[in-house]
C-alpha cells in the first residue's frame, strides 16, 4: 500500500521544476532568456541612476571537451547602474521573488524572477556558483554564492570587500551555464540591436563566443523621464489588494481610506463611490466585513466617476528618442522616411498604458528588409522576438488596417515598430514574448499605427509628385535634342545648343517663361 505524501516546495524549487514557463525550456532558448533577463536588469539599474547605460556583455565558451552542440558558457555582464546595496545582494540574485520592482511604476522586470532564474539555471546545469560584484559608490562587495533551492535563499561561499578609490558604481555578474549559442546567435544579436533601437541613450557592447565584437553605440545622451511610483487606481484593484491595504492602513474611516490609498480620489469622489458601494463613509476600514469588501471591490468596476489613471508612472520613449533609435539601428538615411507617434495615455482594466508607433519606409528599408511589412514589437522598452503572429501588434497591423488607404501596396517595404509601456503589460505568458489583444490596447495600437501611417501616405504622395517631376524633366531631356537635330537638318544648319533650355526646365523658374517672346506663325506663300 502506498501513501500519498504531502509536502510544500519553495518558489525556487517550483521554478526549478517548471523552468520552461520562465523561458528556460531548452539550451538555446535558455541562453537567450538568461542574456535578456540580465541585460534588462542592468538597463533598469542604469535608468534608476539617471545615467546613460553602458552595458558590457561577454559570452565565452568553457572548454569541457564535449562534442555536442550544447556547451558550457561563461556569461559576464557589467553595468554602470545604481549598484545593489551589499545587504540586498544575496537575496536579489539568489532568491526567487525578491526585488525592487513590486511597486506601481513602469519597469522592464516585474516578477523579481528573471535574474535569479538565470542564476538558478546556471547552477543546476553546471553546479558552479555565481559571482556578483557591486558597489553603490562606496566599498566594492564581491560575493560568490549558490542558491539553496529547497529553501529559496542564498548560500554565500565567499564575500570580499574591497576599497573603491575610483568611485566606481554599478554591478558585474558572472555565471556559468549550459547553452547552445549557434542556434540562438541570430536572435541574440537581433535582441541587442532592437534593445539599442528603443534605448538609444544606451551603449551596448557584446563579445560573442567566437570572439566577435558587437558595438551598439548610443545616439543620444538624453534619457526619457523617470517614471514615478503611484498609488493604485481603483479600477485595477482586486479583493486581495484591497484587504492588504486595509490591513496596512492608518486611516480611521472609509472616506479617508479611499482618499489615502487610491489615486485620483478626492472627498466628493470618495463619498459618491461609497454611496454606490453601499458602504458607510464613516465605517472603520479595520472592521469592514468580508461582504463589504467584496461589495466595495465590485463597485470599483461599476463606478464611472474615477479620473483616468495617472500616467506619471509611465515612461514612454518619446517621439524624438524613438526616432533616433530606429534611424540609428536601421541605418536610415535621407532617402528614407520615418514617422513616430506617441499616443496620449489610455487605460485597460485600471492600468494606464501608452502606445508609441513608428512607421518607416524608403530605399534603405527596401535594401535591408526587402518587400513587405516588418514588425518590431516592444513592451516597456524590451524587444519581443517570438510568437509575432500571436500578438496584438501583428493583429492590428495585418487585420485592422487597410493599407491601400495609405498608398501602401503588398510589396511596399515597410517597417512598423510599436512600443507599449504600462505598469502591467498584458503578457500572455511568464516568458514575456507577446502581448494579448485587450480591446483597449488593440484599439490604441491600431490608432497609433494609423496615425504614423498617415505620415507615410504624405511621404508617398510627395514621392509620387517628385517622380512625376523627374519624368517631366526626362521628357524635355529626351525630346529637345531630337527637335534640335531635325530642325537643324530642316534648316540646313549646325545642331543648336539646347543646354540653356534644359537649364530652364531643371530650375523651373516661371519668370523665364514670361520672357519667351511671341513668335510669328510660319508665313509662307501658299498659292499653288
Amino acid at each position, binding site marked *: 500500500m502506498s501513501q500519498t505524501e504531502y509536502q510544500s516546495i519553495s518558489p525556487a524549487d517550483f521554478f526549478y521544476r517548471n523552468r520552461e514557463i520562465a523561458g528556460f525550456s531548452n539550451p538555446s532558448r535558455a541562453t537567450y532568456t538568461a542574456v535578456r533577463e540580465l541585460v534588462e536588469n542592468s538597463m533598469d539599474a542604469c535608468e534608476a541612476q539617471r545615467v546613460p547605460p553602458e552595458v558590457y556583455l561577454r559570452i565565452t565558451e568553457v572548454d569541457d571537451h564535449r562534442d555536442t552542440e550544447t556547451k558550457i558558457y561563461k556569461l559576464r555582464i557589467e553595468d554602470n547602474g545604481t549598484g545593489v546595496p551589499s545587504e540586498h545582494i544575496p537575496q536579489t540574485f539568489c532568491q526567487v521573488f525578491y526585488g525592487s520592482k513590486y511597486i506601481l511604476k513602469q519597469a522592464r522586470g516585474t516578477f523579481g524572477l528573471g535574474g535569479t532564474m538565470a542564476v538558478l539555471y546556471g547552477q543546476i546545469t553546471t553546479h558552479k556558483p555565481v559571482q556578483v560584484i557591486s558597489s553603490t559608490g562606496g566599498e566594492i562587495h564581491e560575493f560568490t554564492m549558490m542558491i539553496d533551492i529547497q529553501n529559496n535563499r542564498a548560500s554565500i561561499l565567499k564575500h570580499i570587500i574591497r576599497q573603491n578609490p575610483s568611485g566606481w558604481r554599478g554591478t558585474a555578474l558572472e555565471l556559468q551555464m549550459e547553452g547552445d549559442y549557434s542556434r540562438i546567435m541570430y536572435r541574440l544579436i537581433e535582441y541587442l540591436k532592437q534593445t539599442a533601437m528603443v534605448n538609444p541613450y544606451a551603449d551596448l557592447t557584446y563579445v560573442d563566443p567566437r570572439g566577435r565584437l558587437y558595438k551598439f553605440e548610443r545616439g543620444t545622451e538624453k534619457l526619457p523621464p523617470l517614471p514615478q511610483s503611484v498609488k493604485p487606481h481603483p479600477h485595477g484593484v482586486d479583493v486581495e489588494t484591497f484587504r492588504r491595504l486595509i490591513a496596512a492602513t492608518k486611516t480611521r474611516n472609509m472616506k479617508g481610506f479611499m482618499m489615502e490609498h487610491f489615486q485620483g480620489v478626492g472627498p466628493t469622489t470618495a463619498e459618491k463611490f461609497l454611496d454606490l458601494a453601499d458602504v458607510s463613509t464613516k465605517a472603520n476600514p479595520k472592521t469592514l466585513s468580508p461582504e463589504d469588501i467584496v461589495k466595495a471591490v465590485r463597485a470599483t468596476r461599476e463606478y464611472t466617476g474615477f479620473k483616468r489613471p495617472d500616467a506619471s508612472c509611465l515612461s514612454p520613449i518619446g517621439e524624438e528618442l524613438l526616432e533616433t533609435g530606429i534611424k540609428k539601428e536601421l541605418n536610415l538615411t535621407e532617402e528614407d522616411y520615418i514617422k513616430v507617434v506617441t499616443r496620449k495615455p489610455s487605460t485597460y482594466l485600471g492600468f494606464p498604458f501608452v502606445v508609441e508607433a513608428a512607421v518607416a519606409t524608403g530605399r534603405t528599408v527596401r535594401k535591408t528588409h526587402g518587400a513587405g511589412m516588418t514588425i518590431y514589437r516592444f513592451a516597456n522598452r524590451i524587444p519581443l522576438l517570438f510568437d509575432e503572429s500571436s500578438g496584438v501588434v501583428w493583429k492590428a497591423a495585418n487585420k485592422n488596417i487597410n493599407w491601400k488607404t495609405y498608398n501602401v501596396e503588398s510589396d511596399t517595404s515597410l517597417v512598423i515598430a510599436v512600443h507599449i509601456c504600462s505598469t502591467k503589460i498584458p503578457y500572455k505568458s511568464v516568458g514575456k514574448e507577446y502581448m494579448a489583444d485587450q480591446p483597449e490596447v488593440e484599439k490604441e495600437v491600431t490608432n497609433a499605427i494609423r496615425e504614423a501611417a498617415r505620415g507615410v501616405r504624405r511621404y508617398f504622395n510627395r514621392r509620387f509628385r517628385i517622380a512625376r517631376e523627374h519624368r517631366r524633366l526626362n521628357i524635355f531631356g529626351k525630346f529637345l535634342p531630337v527637335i*534640335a537635330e531635325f530642325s537643324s537638318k*530642316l534648316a540646313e*544648319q549646325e545642331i543648336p545648343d539646347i543646354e540653356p*533650355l534644359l537649364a530652364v526646365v531643371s530650375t523651373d523658374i516661371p519668370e523665364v517663361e514670361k520672357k*519667351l517672346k511671341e513668335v510669328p506663325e510660319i508665313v509662307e506663300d501658299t498659292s499653288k
Partner: protein
Amino acid sequence: MEQSLTGLGNLIYEQITNHEFPWIHMQSRSTDNIMYDPEERQYVLGPRMIRRHSRNIRHIRPFTQLVWTAWFAKELVMHRKTSTLREVYYSARGHRDIEYNNQQESDNIITDMEVALNRAREDFHIFPEERSAIFGDLTIEYTVPGYEGRRTNLTDHPDGVMIGPAVTSSEFVETSADKVLVVEKGAMFTRLVEERAHDKFNAILIHTAGQSPRATRGIINRLNQDYDLPVYIFTDGDPWGIHIAMVIISGSANAAHLRGLTTPDAEWIGVWGTDIIDYKLPTEPLTEFDHKRLRELKNDPRYTGDIWQRELDVFLKLEQKAELEAFSRYGLTYIVDEYLPAKLGS
C-alpha cells in the same frame, strides 16, 4: 515645297538659338473650329489658332514628331520619292524617341503638318493607299522620276489606270471628253468600260472605290476647273452612296484646312429615291443605321439644296434603298443604254 519645310526648320532653329522653347502657331482642328462656309461651298477652319509649344509637357512629344515628319517629308521631296501614310508610320517606328503608338497618331501629325504649312500631304509626296482608277480619253505627261516627259492616254489600259502619285503629279495634256462620270464601285466602272460608255457619252470615267481618296477628289477638281468639264456622280441609292457624292462636291470636315479638293458644281445623278419609284427598282429595306444616317444628313449644312432634301425625304418615306446593280433586272446594258442617257440628258 522644300522652302516651306525649310522655313519651318529655320523658325524652330532660330527659336532654339534665341534660347526660347520652340513653338508654332496653327489653326485649331477641333470640331468647334470647323464650320461650313456656304460661299466656298465646303467646310473651312474657323479663326481660332492654337500654339503647339515644346515648353508644354503634353505638346513636346507631338511637336517633336511634327519636326521629324517635316524632315522626313523634306527628304522625300528632295530625293523625289513618294511614300504612303503607312510607310511614314513605319519609318518613325524604331526611330529614337519619336515612336508612335499607332498609325492614327502618325496620320494625325501629318494632318497637323498640312495645317501648319497650309499644304496637302500629297505636296509632301505622302499618299494614302490607292484603290481608285481613271479611264477615258485624257492624255497625261508624267513628271515622276524616270518617266519625265513620257505621255500616255488613259484609254490605253482597259482596266483603267490607278490614281496614284504618278497620275496625281502628271500634267494634263489634252482630252476630247466633254464630261466626267464618277461611279463609286469597281464593278460598275468595268461595266461602263465594257459598254464603251466613254465613247457613248464622250466621258472620262472615274471610280472612287467607296469614299473617294483626296487625290481622286483633286483630279476631279482639276478636270472640272482646268477643262471646264461637268462632273456627274453615280452612286448607290442609300445614305452612304449619297455621302460619297457629297464629299466630292463639298468636301469633308477632316479636310477643312485644304482647298482644291471640292467640286461644288458636280452633280449627283443617282441612284435617287425617285428612281426607285420611276424605274421600279428592286430594293432592300432601310436598316436602323441607314435611318439614323439619313436623319443626320438632313441636318447637315451641306445638304441644304432642294434636290438633297427632296431625295432624303423620299428614302425616308419609302423605307427602301437600292444599289447601282439594281438596274441589272432590265439586263446588263440597260444602265448604259437607257438610264444614263436619260439622266445625262435631263
